[in-house]
């Protein structure tokens, strides 16, 4: 890739990585799986980059149960490793994660990392939409200080996140889901090589009577510069019976939750239409998992 690099570094510790990132400042960029570096370069976003700091030797890889009954996915875990993780695969509450991993080619699943997928802050990416629906938290480290950022506050704009310069994502934590919870993710694309038209990720929790006790509905893809939380659709469904009528109410409300993008792939009107269809389908998929 045609960057004008002074050097490519492979630090062996977080401290060494931090020192390099501080030394180069705006001239350094972290590389994990490296699959988005080309994408950044062709958009002209790496003209100042003179040092790549490859963090793939820092460990930070694997998936475990977190102390509060949730799941913690370390940042350097590859997408293929997430797809194969038993802790995630068998749990209907986390099923949106595996749904979102259905789309990338094998070569990307093997190389791309969870941290890179989130840090890229590209609303077209699938997995972060699923993490958002699951109310995930980003764990970071900056010069030895750790902090936790709710994903709801993480995505600031297109390719812009709440990360400060030199701050490294160390893990994504998914909180323990409530009882009777399921999730799902669906994507609409015109072909497997193109960017998506629209993505929907949901998490649905039922009460004893089968009503929607809680839900989170996230839109990604052609919805603008960042992911959108469809709060109007969520409000329309909360407290309603989880079924066709409630899902239709959520679908009807979703059109007011986002500004549909208009481009050569689809008109804004089509995207508004398809958002309703996909919100309904994604909710129905989640509900079926509680069967």
């Amino acid at each position, binding site marked *: *890739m*045609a*960057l*004008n*690099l*002074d*050097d*490519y570094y*492979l630090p062996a510790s977080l401290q060494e990585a931090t020192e390099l990132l501080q030394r180069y400042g705006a001239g350094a960029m972290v*590389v994990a799986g*490296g*699959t988005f*570096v*080309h994408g950044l370069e*062709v958009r002209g976003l790496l003209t100042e980059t003179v040092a*790549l700091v*490859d963090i*793939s030797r820092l460990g930070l890889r694997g998936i475990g149960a977190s102390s509060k009954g949730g799941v913690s996915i370390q940042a350097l875990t590859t997408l*293929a490793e997430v797809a194969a993780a038993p802790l995630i695969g068998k749990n209907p509450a986390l099923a949106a994660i595996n749904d979102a991993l259905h789309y*990338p*080619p*094998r*070569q*990307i699943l*093997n*190389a791309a990392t969870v941290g890179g997928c989130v840090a890229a802050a590209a609303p077209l990416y699938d997995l972060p939409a699923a993490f958002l629906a699951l109310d995930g938290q980003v764990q970071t480290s900056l010069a030895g200080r750790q902090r936790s950022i709710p994903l709801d506050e993480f995505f600031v704009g297109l390719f812009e996140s709440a990360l400060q310069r030199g701050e490294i994502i160390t893990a994504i934590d998914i909180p323990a889901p409530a009882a009777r919870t399921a999730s799902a993710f669906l994507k609409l694309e015109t072909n*497997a*090589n193109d960017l998506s038209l629209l993505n929907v990720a949901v998490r649905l929790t039922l009460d004893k009577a089968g009503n929607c006790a809680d839900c989170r509905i996230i839109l990604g893809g052609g919805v603008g510069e960042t992911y959108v939380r469809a709060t109007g659709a969520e409000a329309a469904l909360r407290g309603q019976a989880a079924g066709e009528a409630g899902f239709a109410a959520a679908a009807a409300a979703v059109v007011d939750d986002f500004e549909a993008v208009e481009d050569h792939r689809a008109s804004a009107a089509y995207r508004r239409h398809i958002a309703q269809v996909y919100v309904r389908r994604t909710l129905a998929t989640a509900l079926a998992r509680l069967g």
Partner: protein
Amino acid sequence: MKTIELQINGSTHEVSIEADETLLQVLRNRLDLTGTKKGCDSGGCGCCSVQVDGKVVYSCMMYAAGAAGKAITTIEGLGGGGTALDPLQQAFIDAGAVQCGYCTCGMIMNASELLATTKNPGEDQIRHAIAGNLCRCTGYTKIVDAIKLAAARTGG
């Protein structure tokens, strides 16, 4: 320039590279391992596929410096690295799965991971696995046949 050590097909190669060279560039231009092909150079076609620690990746999307110390396998390393063919290579010939041949090495490197991890993959599994590899000639049917044939010959 800096010198790095790459483990390729079981041998250690010391090679001087620029910091921004991809694994694909180093394999082809500095080590003459030209079985790995350059197509789109941007993750869209799959003909640069190699295995790193047994996992198929796009070598155009990996920096050579980042591959240091990892076990890299290219098409030249299949079948024991000599003139003997890997069952997948033989099956591609026998099934008529090669036309211009430009996609073939990447397809085989991909299918080789699939067969190492999945016994007797079904048609859907094969097609899903090779989704990141484009072929402009064959229409894929014979490629899928070849992968099935290799799976059958190697006992699933």
